[in-house]
């Protein structure tokens, strides 16, 4: 059972770190530029061939 406790603690810790990082990023407006990366890859080829 001791292993189970270790597991739970480790899992929760990592999960919390991810959660905090996510909340912080949303609040900080980090996802503002979600437009250009997705679009850039489409233009790439035209640049080269034209």
């Amino acid at each position, binding site marked *: *059972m*001791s*292993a*189970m406790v*270790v*597991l739970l603690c*480790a*899992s929760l810790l*990592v999960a919390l770190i*991810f959660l905090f*990082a996510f909340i*912080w*990023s949303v609040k*900080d407006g*980090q*996802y*503002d*530029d*979600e*437009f250009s*990366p*997705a*679009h*850039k*890859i*489409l233009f*790439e*080829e035209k*640049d*080269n061939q034209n």
Partner: protein
Amino acid sequence: MNTESSKDVNITGNEQILRPGEGLQVETFYYDNKTVRNFAYATLFWGLVGMLAGLWAALCLAWPEVNLGLPATSFGRMRPVHTNAVIFAFVGNAIFCGVYYSLQRLLKARIWSDKLSKIHFWGWQTIILIGALSLWMGFTQGKEYAELEWPLDIAITVIWLIFGANMLGTILHRRVAHLYVAIWFYIGTWVAVAMLHIVNSIALPVSFTKSYSWYAGVQDALVQWWYGHNAVAFFLTTPFLGLMYYFVPKAANRPVYSYRWSIIHFWALIFLYIWAGPHHLLYTALPEWAQSLGTVFSIMLIAPSWGGMLNGLLTLRGAWDRVRDDAILKFFVVALTCYGMATFEGPMLSLKSVNAISHYTDWTIAHVHVGALGWNGFLAFGMLYWLLPRIFNTKLYSQKWANTHFWIGTLGIIFYVIPLYWAAFTQSLMWKQFTDEGTLQYQFMETVNAIQPMYVLRAVGGTLYISGLVLMIVNIYKTIKSGKLIANEKAEAPSLPENYKFKESKGHWHGWIEKRPVQMIFLSLIAVGIGGMVEMIPTFLVKSNIPTIASVKPYTPLELYGRNIYIREGCYTCHSQMIRPFRDEVARYGEYSKAGEFVYDHPFQWGSKRTGPDLAREGGKYPDSWHYNHMLDPTSMTSGSLMPRYPWLFDDKIDKMKTYDMIKAMKKLGVPYAEGYENIANDDVDLQSAKIQKSLAAEKIDVAPNDEIVALIAYLQRLGTDIKAEKSTP
């Protein structure tokens, strides 16, 4: 190495041009399409070989005569050839092909080193070729999807490092600061596969062609399925998701539906996947807590998996009218749909109540083929149809043929999986059926014969799928004939400012990591490493997880020889050695398996499929002569048996010179043989083989004491008997 490879890049030219009025340094460089083409050819070639090996294995199950009574053509050796070839050769080469194509274009840079590309390509093909030959020859570690022996394991590690170096080198010399989502998937894949491969392959060599797994029994099982599941996760899934995030938007000419989803998809997936391995071991002797953990994480995996699938499908918004005509988009749509089905089914199969029915049946085979044929196969086909005409500066020879390929392939998948789902339900329910008197209703053989027609149908499905591939190869051949390879494709891009890292200090938190690939690798390693460590270290350290059983003793040397044969012939591909604590299994096979019974099993041989019955308590069930006749011709003992004949075991001899090294190795692995036993072990070999020889002679069967069949009988008669000794002594 460094200076040489940068020279390679310079050969293709890095002339710096100044755009008038801009002052931006625009560099001209060339994409390497030759390596991409080579990997594409290899994908098609090995795909055909691997799928034909699979068809052969399928035919062996439909008509056992197909085994031909020869070692290399028997199911037990053909099946590892098939699985290794389609995973590491077909899918592997498809990954490299797609990564080399997309990475260069996403980063606006030629692949870092031409020399490393060449070593990577030829090294990988050599490993595949030698690997296939060695598996046909019977050199195997006996762990599913990790069968290749230790020298090849080392070669794989070296080539994988070269691939990583080449990828990282390209990332470091890139002209685009932002790392597109596909690249994170490539990096995550690289890190995870390196770790999985090394951890699972740790073994003690006894010769150039033989080694024993460092781990034993329950621990070996946990490590193997942690690896096995993550081979699916990080070799068949994450790299293909990376390819999906590049090629689906490109083919549809639409940006990915949600870039935010893709970020979440990546991080959630690499973190969750690594924990799910134990769901392959539900109801086995693996500690309960580890099973539950595997189940919980498997359920959670639905979220990122379906997020990713929907993200891919929704990328086609506004382009659905094109799906009607465009074969490539059709392939992608079905690939994504199959990904969605497989990743919904996976968590369902991880529920204990479902797993009780599905495990050891053809359900698992159907499940993986939805993924392999649908997701991996169709995504690879779509990608190659899209990319090959482009690098050959031409058009696809026949859109019509590509569409035909799509429909034949889709029918193939349907004909493949539906019969197997049917077979799985039928057989599992038959296994569990009791009569009113409380005895088992069906003999094992009856359950096999009931589903055999399904095996025929499955082979039909496989044949259809392969026909589609053949049509594709012809189409591609005609396509490349009509064009010419642009070996070095010209491109231009401004170089990256030296100080870009500091310029954009106020941005995306994720932007920070995207510009730092080295830190990114570290973080990915930490994320995936935690899962593995938390599951494995306690199992190794906490003794109570594997209660020792006093009566369980190490194998005798002759039994070890027999075990080597059992592993060599791939018996584990059809026979489990793990009785789950169910009423029907205990009634059919005997007392359920205990963790402590496997402490000397290097490697474990629990298996994952019961095409034949479980063998965990085979010892003492039948006389020696039964096994003798059964191995010579299984149908003579069990009418209707699907098992291959093993005539070579009656001619080939064990080499007693190996006893010393074998016992030495086992001792090193912690098996408690007496001090100096390796020197006198051959006396025991002689004693035990003489005993079996005598018991066979009583049945008028004449064998030489060192015949392989004698060793195999010794091993089979030992299986699961130790625990009975404990019961008889009060």
